[in-house]
């Protein structure tokens, strides 16, 4: 009994790794078999990983991307969360803004990039702005949802203690909605990665997306694949970090079914 549960646990930990290895093996076999220029083998792509990761310029590019993403994310937190919370607690504000947001939501944010570039150039500002837009909406909607569905009696209790409405927004509504806000952050994180890469594909100046497409232009296909692997690992790592942060911040909440908003990059 204990032996089999132990085996099960070992498999539970190694299982995902085995899946990755199996995929890599399939990739290797298929690529060797097909022998296409645009489809390097897994070994060729993996060999490029240390090359890219020891190249200072490439690292600086990836650093640029992450910096822009972080700026946009913080900006979105500062703007979208308060607006979402206010909307959740004010029907009038929700009625005012909801139609507008519903129109903006389905627009792929990278589609705004040409227009934003015309106004703000191809530099950091445009990219941060577009990532900010991409992150803001899921963040705003989840904050709105969390604030709207919180127990209003928590607010009443705080009001009876003499707490004014603006303070209540941060000391009661924010923590009460925090599980939802953080869920929005997680969705926003994967959105940020997606928009980050697409914005750099459109405005090729620096960053991970720029590296990827430069390699593409120069027909360095193993580098292209290696870059995709790096981006996947980046998404996976950020998501894992964020998940740990989320658990720490909301350990007090009842266990809930979270939608699996994994990092898709």
């Amino acid at each position: 009994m204990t032996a089999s549960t132990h085996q099960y646990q070992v498999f539970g930990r190694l299982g995902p790794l085995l899946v990755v290895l199996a995929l890599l093996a399939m990739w290797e076999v298929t690529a060797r078999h097909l022998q296409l220029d645009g489809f390097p083998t897994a070994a060729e792509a993996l060999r490029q990983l240390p090359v890219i990761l020891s190249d200072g310029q490439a690292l600086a590019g990836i650093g640029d991307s992450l910096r822009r993403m972080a700026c946009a994310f913080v900006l979105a937190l500062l703007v979208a969360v308060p607006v979402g919370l206010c909307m959740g607690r004010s029907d009038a504000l929700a009625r005012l803004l909801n139609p507008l947001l519903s129109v903006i939501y389905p627009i792929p944010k990278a589609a705004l990039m040409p227009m934003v570039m015309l106004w703000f150039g191809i530099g950091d500002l445009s990219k941060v702005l577009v990532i900010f837009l991409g992150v803001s909406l899921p963040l705003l909607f989840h904050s709105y949802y969390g604030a709207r569905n919180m127990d209003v009696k928590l607010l009443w209790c705080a009001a009876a203690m003499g707490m004014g409405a603006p303070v209540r927004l941060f000391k009661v509504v924010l923590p009460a909605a925090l599980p939802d806000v953080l869920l929005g952050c997680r969705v926003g994180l994967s959105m940020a990665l997606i928009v980050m890469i697409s914005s750099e594909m459109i405005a090729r100046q620096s960053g991970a997306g720029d590296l990827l497409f430069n390699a593409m232009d120069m027909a360095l296909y193993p580098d292209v694949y290696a870059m995709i692997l790096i981006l996947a690992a980046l998404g996976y790592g950020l998501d894992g970090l964020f998940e740990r942060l989320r658990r720490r911040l909301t350990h007090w909440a009842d266990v809930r079914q979270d939608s699996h908003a994994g990092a898709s990059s």
Partner: protein
Amino acid sequence: MTGQSMISIQHLCKSFYTADRHTHMALDNIDLDIREGEFVSILGPSGCGKSTLLYMLGGFVPATSGTLVAQGKTITGPGPDRGPVFQEFALFPWKTVIGNVMYGLREQGVGRRDARERAMALLHKVNLADYADFYPKELSGGMRQRVAIARTLAYDPAILLMDEPFGALDAHTRTVLQNELLEIWERDRKTVVFVTHGVDEAVFLSDRVVVMTRSPGRIKTVIDIDLPRPRVRSELLVNRRYQDYVVHLEQLIEDVHLEACSA
């Protein structure tokens, strides 16, 4: 005990707009005076507006017309003179037990150390001192409601507004908390407005029971409960007068149901 007027409700009406834009009269012309230190229960079937009445006393919900006065001041919003306790506990889930009890004190500007000391003393009173660092989700319903009561007592409101506070608890826990509530009340004699639909609970706890009708909510009658205090359940259960009160109120409530059904 028969002190001056603590709460005065005059010609109070409350109506809602329903989904099909009709007005629904929830409370119709309520008049009620509650004296300082009095324990008053509001008894009625669900949907009679008794909780709405309590929310208006708390200042959480505005009245449609009429006046509400607490301690000589017209009620315009929530305030620390009126402390609510809800059926669903409404504890701050992100705060520990002690954090919840300290919350109101900190909000009133009491220093951290002082607030902690006073909160700890209250937790001793409700037998939860060992659970100070637990989070609400780790506690049973009865414990959560004890924390909620301690949290409200902490900032020392003159009036306790209790909205079916023991309605979500099992029968045994309910009787235990009723006894604890009476003990606390005997000690500091706060004015209590206690909403319930339990007849025996109302009789056991109260000085007066206000019986309400349904749609629209009106006061059907007010019954003085003339039973000795401190009250001990085992003695009351064999007390003839207690039994008469319970039977009489049960009949009134049944009448209310029948009237509502025939209306």
